[in-house]
């Protein structure tokens, strides 16, 4: 039998083990949300790695309430926001939207949703990402963004409305 080694062999307390569990089970979801925020695959990987590194360094401050995963999501969103700010990635001006959305079949697909999402207010974008990419419910999104669950619903509706308006503007 192959000798089994523990990847999490430096575990010095069980919060670290729990973090490892969250990391392995949720890695691709974390990566997806990070990529949605930073718009760069490589940078997104860094964001996820840095998120968990920060969580490990700050694990003694984890309060044990609200759930470990929600705490991680909160760190990830902040880390991704900082990464966007530090990398000074170009933002898509609103006036470019119409051109980019006008595709041959009139359907915004693939990267064509990108400028529309980029133009949404930050909170709407984050709520969308956490809802669809992370599959978090309203309460957890509220925990992550530190807003009320009712605000999550309202923000999601606003984001939907914005997407609907944009889609209707696309020639069909």
């Amino acid at each position: 039998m192959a000798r089994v080694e523990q990847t999490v062999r430096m575990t010095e307390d069980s919060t670290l083990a729990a973090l490892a569990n969250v990391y392995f089970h949720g890695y691709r979801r974390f990566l997806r949300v990070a990529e949605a925020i930073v718009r760069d695959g490589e940078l997104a990987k860094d964001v996820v790695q840095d998120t968990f590194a920060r969580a490990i360094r700050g694990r003694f401050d984890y309060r044990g309430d609200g759930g470990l995963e929600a705490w991680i999501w909160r760190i990830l969103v902040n880390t991704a926001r900082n990464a966007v700010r530090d990398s000074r990635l170009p933002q898509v001006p609103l006036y470019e939207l119409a051109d980019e959305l006008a595709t041959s079949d009139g359907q915004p697909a693939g990267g064509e949703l990108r400028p529309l999402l980029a133009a949404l207010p930050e909170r709407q974008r984050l709520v969308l990402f956490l809802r669809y990419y992370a599959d978090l419910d309203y309460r957890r999104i509220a925990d992550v963004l530190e807003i009320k669950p009712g605000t999550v619903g309202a923000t999601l509706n606003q984001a939907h409305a914005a997407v609907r308006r944009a889609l209707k503007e696309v020639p069909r």
Partner: protein
Amino acid sequence: MTDLDLLVAEALENDVPFRRDAEADWPDVLRRAGVAVAFNGHPGRVVGASAVRRSHRRWYAAAATAAALLALSFVTPLGGAIRDTVADFSDWLRGTPGEPVSGEEQRAFDEANARSYAAFPGSPELRRLIRTEIDGVSYDLLGFRSGNSLCIRVVAAGEARGSTLTCAPVGELRHDDTPVRVLLADWPVGKGDKTARLGFETYRAPLAQVTAGIAADGVSGVELVDEHGSHRVDVVANSFLYVAPRPEVAQRVTHVRAQLADGGTVGVPFTVTPSGPGGGYGGGAGEPGGPTRVERAVKGGRIGWVDRRDERGEPLDESAREKFHLLAEAEFGRVLTPDPDSSKRIAITIGESPLLRTDAGERPKRPAICTSVLSRGTASGGCMSFDDMFPDVPFTFGYSVVGAGDQFATFAGIASDDVARLELFTATGNRIDVPLRDNAYLAEVALARLPAKLVAYDTEGRVIGIRETPRDDGPATPVGEPILRLKASAADGSLELVAYRTREGGQCWFGRGTGTARVNVGSCIGKDWREAPVRLGLLPDPAVFVYGRVRDEVKRITLRYADGDEQRIEPERDGYVLFVIPPEHRTQARRLVEFWGLAFDGKVVARQRLPDRG
């Protein structure tokens, strides 16, 4: 889901694809966090178990750093009024401190308890103890007894919100005469406006920090000392609650004293809550007692009912697996209750584990067995090869501390059928019988009593296994301005290192790389640097930078390369090292293989061999 939802979902689906092939890289996370450094003193590399603690290679929640800052002496004489300490906590032992909460609050508590995977046994009666309000935030201290647990709950509401719950085992009151027990230290509430930059990151202080606990009759007040001075709070309902408003970053209560009704004071041992990037729980002064030799060697033990997949304990339902991130596709899962008087449970699952890797970095084909301690909405634990559960000792070993500011460690795990009885021996001279049922064990020990030793006995009373928690450098809180900055550059990256003094008399350093060395690393070393006088690491892979620190007596360092070349360098002030490896030695054939730390007279003080990463 509405049509619009579907439309949005479809568009989002295409916008950022789900990367099924993306590979997680936990060692890289550990490297960035500097965890390897803090634990074993070899910076920046996850050399961990394989190099330093080979005997623990199957890790089970590897026990952490030991024990406590014994803030004040245990031997301070007590006033006559509190000589019989257990009796003096009688209100708590009866479960009747303070006043009962309203019927509505009790019902809400009962309902929440009934829903919990780690429900408190019995029908605990929630009691209102103390209420205070500071800076627009109200703080309610509640308490109850359940089984063998004395619990407090702090609820913050208003400008900042949050709640926490922590418990002490009743047995703790019998271990010594201390008339005050700290159950929670510096639990953070909300976001404050004070920040501090440490290394390359900015840390923000909370809006407030809460310290709370229970007191015996005859205690009139509790004095707490932190960076802002000494603070006295009254004892009300055999309890105390101290709220530090607008603390500094890493501010901590460092001393606690009980003030007795007869005018005397008694030092209260407790554990200073670790903060920020460095340090651990500290190291107690004593050594755990108990047996020192194994009388009958037992290896390769099994658990019969697990091998047979008997349905012991309770089933592990799907929602629990999801909630606690246990093995998602476990073929077998049970929830065990080693101590019916505790709210905590132990889940055992068998299946493929994402945590295990072979030496080649692949998932093993054989199943893993994982154990998790379920408590307060979270789980902690680890996995090991199911085929070889107990390679060295007939039990898994480790402890967990759940929340920020908690003062008790939960020792929990599983033991083979060879084990008839388990005992814990603490550094403060206590012996604790460990509940063991269905091969699962669980015991709670004050962090201030660590290090601790777990001893297993067979049916004839022979010692068949001993494990002891390691000791670490203790709390390390960087303070002030950097005392040193170093930077080194190579063609495809750079590494910067910045060092600080710590409040405790040691030093912490942080490193940040760019380019191919783009990771954060760091380490703290206490005032008494006893082990591993050469603590150097390499970045990236293949190595370009040598970084870290050597102890004061190391005046020169010899770098030895695989091709026989040698190179000598001198450490910077306080022993810090940051050095660029010559380009010709960045290949596998000519790589760096060893450091020698040399004293002033050329004598070799220490050697540090480097693993072959090829």
